């Protein structure tokens, strides 16, 4: 197992090395791990390309990025590795793509998750955003396609949005590379902990379900210390997610403990 020794970063968080290896991420040679999530056709690949300088195929076609791409970039003397997750509408279903994206954010514990959204269709994109914020605290919202929004007389108040979501919101037009610099800065700020995210959690659930979640959260907290996102785990348990049950059993969800996870933990897509 490769460890962090090659890294020149002193106060970087300890990555869950075993997990990342399982997820097929080469551990060496970067300081921070960034995941890129977003609905299909919101310009995710374009953002990925402008961050990394790679030329991945983009297309006006929902559901084109199926396999996971990865790349790297340097900013402000830190090395970032960025993983392009499959574009999905949600993280709650059983489809293969969603499982890959969901498990990566949960088990891979990226330092920052960048959520690319379409500024002209913010409402529907917030569905995925809020789900991501249930899993991870460290996120940046990339408000892409701003040029299209402007052209179509859609105005988005990024500052209020940032306040309401509790994470940085960066307007961009990835096609013309506008705003990418700001995006880089925000990624760095969240990664280093300069910006402390206070993500919004979903509240308006039907009362009886909310109670069920609360009971489980209580039990989880009693039995495990260090559980990062008990609410999400409780919700997944209520949906019978086997990868969560397995992860609880082998202790790989209780952060920092670098336990090796059992071989049959099948959350990686084996293509």
């Amino acid at each position, binding site marked *: 197992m490769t460890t962090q020794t090659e890294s020149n970063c002193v106060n970087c968080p300890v990555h869950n090395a075993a997990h990342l290896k399982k997820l097929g991420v080469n551990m060496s040679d970067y300081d921070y791990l960034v995941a890129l999530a977003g609905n*299909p*056709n919101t310009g995710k690949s374009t953002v990925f390309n402008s961050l990394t300088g790679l*030329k*991945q*195929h*983009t*297309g*006006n*076609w*929902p*559901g*084109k990025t*199926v396999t996971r791409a990865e790349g790297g970039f340097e900013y402000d003397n830190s090395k970032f590795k960025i993983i392009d997750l499959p574009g999905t509408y*949600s993280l*709650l279903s059983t*489809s*293969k*793509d969603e499982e890959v994206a969901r498990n990566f954010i949960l088990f891979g514990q990226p330092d920052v998750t960048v959520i690319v959204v379409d500024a002209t269709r*913010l*409402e529907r994109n*917030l*569905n995925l955003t*809020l789900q991501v914020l249930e899993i991870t605290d460290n996120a940046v919202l990339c408000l892409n396609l701003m040029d*299209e929004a402007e*052209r*179509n*007389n*859609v*105005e*988005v*108040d*990024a500052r*209020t*949005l940032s306040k*309401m979501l509790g994470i940085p919101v960066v307007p961009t037009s990835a*096609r013309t590379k506008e705003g990418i610099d700001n995006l880089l800065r925000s990624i760095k700020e969240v990664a280093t902990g300069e910006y402390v995210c206070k993500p*919004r959690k*979903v*509240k*308006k*659930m*039907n009362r*009886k*379900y909310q109670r*069920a979640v609360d*009971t*489980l959260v209580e*039990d*989880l907290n009693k*039995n495990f210390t260090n559980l990062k996102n008990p609410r999400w785990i*409780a*919700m997944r*348990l*209520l*949906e*019978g997610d086997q990868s969560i*049950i397995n992860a*609880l*059993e082998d202790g790989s969800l209780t952060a920092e403990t670098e336990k090796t996870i059992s071989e049959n933990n099948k959350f990686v897509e084996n*293509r």
Partner: protein
Amino acid sequence: MNNVKEIVNKANVLRWELGENFHDSLIEAIYKEAETISKETVKFKGENYSFSLDRTIDKYVTSRLYGFPIMLILLALVFWITIIGANYPSQFLSTLLLDKLHPVLKDFALGVGAPFWLVGLLIDGGYLATVWVIAVMLPPMAIFFPLYTLLEDFGYLPRVAFNMDRLFKKVGAHGKQALTMSMGFGCNAAGVVAARVIDSPRERLIAIITNNFSLCNGRWPTQILIASIFVGALVPAQLAGIVSALAVVSVALLGVFLSLAVSWGLSRTVLQGEVSSFSLELPPYRPPRILQTIYTSLIDRTLIVLWRAVIFAFPAGLVIWSVANITIGGEPLASYIINFFDPVGILIGLNGIILLGFVIAIPANEIVIPTILMLTVLFTGSAAGHENGVLFELDSLKDTEQLLRLGGWTLLTAVNVMLFSLIHNPCSTTIYTIYKETGSLKWTLLSTFLPVGMGLMLTFFVAQIWRIFSG
């Protein structure tokens, strides 16, 4: 850990008590939240111009009256540009790599004292097959893929899926299969990769398995050559062009029909139990970025497919040269194989040479005809070819016809070659791609052997019925 078990049990009790609507309730709550947030942060200040523009475009491209004509015209345009545009570079490449460079290389190799067999194997075999594939394959793909990608980038392709979905639903498939099929007319391997846009597992498998029935770029030349020689000859000279073109188009249409029929069959039998769900988003139209598109589609599609083809073509070249040039008891190896295949070949209206041609040209359909020509020369001892045991194509149709007739070809042979070229196993590049995309040996084998079986069947029946009627 026992606690986990307890918690899981508790969760299950809760699930039973709450009924099955937890998921729904969660999604509803999230959307409510999203609504609240977007109400506070998003302002619509006037008309959404592109939305109304999109609707206007959509009115035409999905209309009952214009929808299909527009689609056919665009597709025809793409093919036309591809065929016309590919002609010159193809000729240029083949003159350069085959006619000019090949003898130079060979002389050079012999000059530095390389043994004859090695030169033959590497240069007459491997090199020739590889550059052959490049010359035939590269130009059309370098034109077809960017054009196709431009349509994709613009946002037109999902509309085609929208228009065609009804038809595909009838056979248990997804409207987007219309796109993987038309992609398959360019290259089946690319068509298989394109099936990624189909997000329902069952429909995606159907699209992958049936893609081979789209007559690909590598097979069009075979069809055209055979049709012009044998079918065109049936009618007066001034009609020959049209009739042979019609013959080729009917073969392609037969492919489309088979594709649908097999989809129907698969969705009702082996694939019945696979996961299935439908959704189709119609994205906004966006002006495509032409340069970037050309660049990425060259890198992403053309070169990758070409590279895979080359990897397979080189060893095929080695095999082709070997069977033609290695002799056992004074007879080339090929003779034995051809004699072995001959009874079956004759039975299904082909012959041993043609079957062997199809077998060793599995790596690339482009070299089926050259291989058959070479073997025919070898076997009939005709002097029409250049050197014995080397791939070639004749410049004039008349010469080709003479050679083939000498090899025992009749109209029946021609028809069956056209049919079998449509309905046989995918080329090795495609087979490999299918394996990569599905990750399953089972589906790869099915996609390989189903069409061979169907092709053998069909040619067999055509041959028998033909023979009955021709007495």
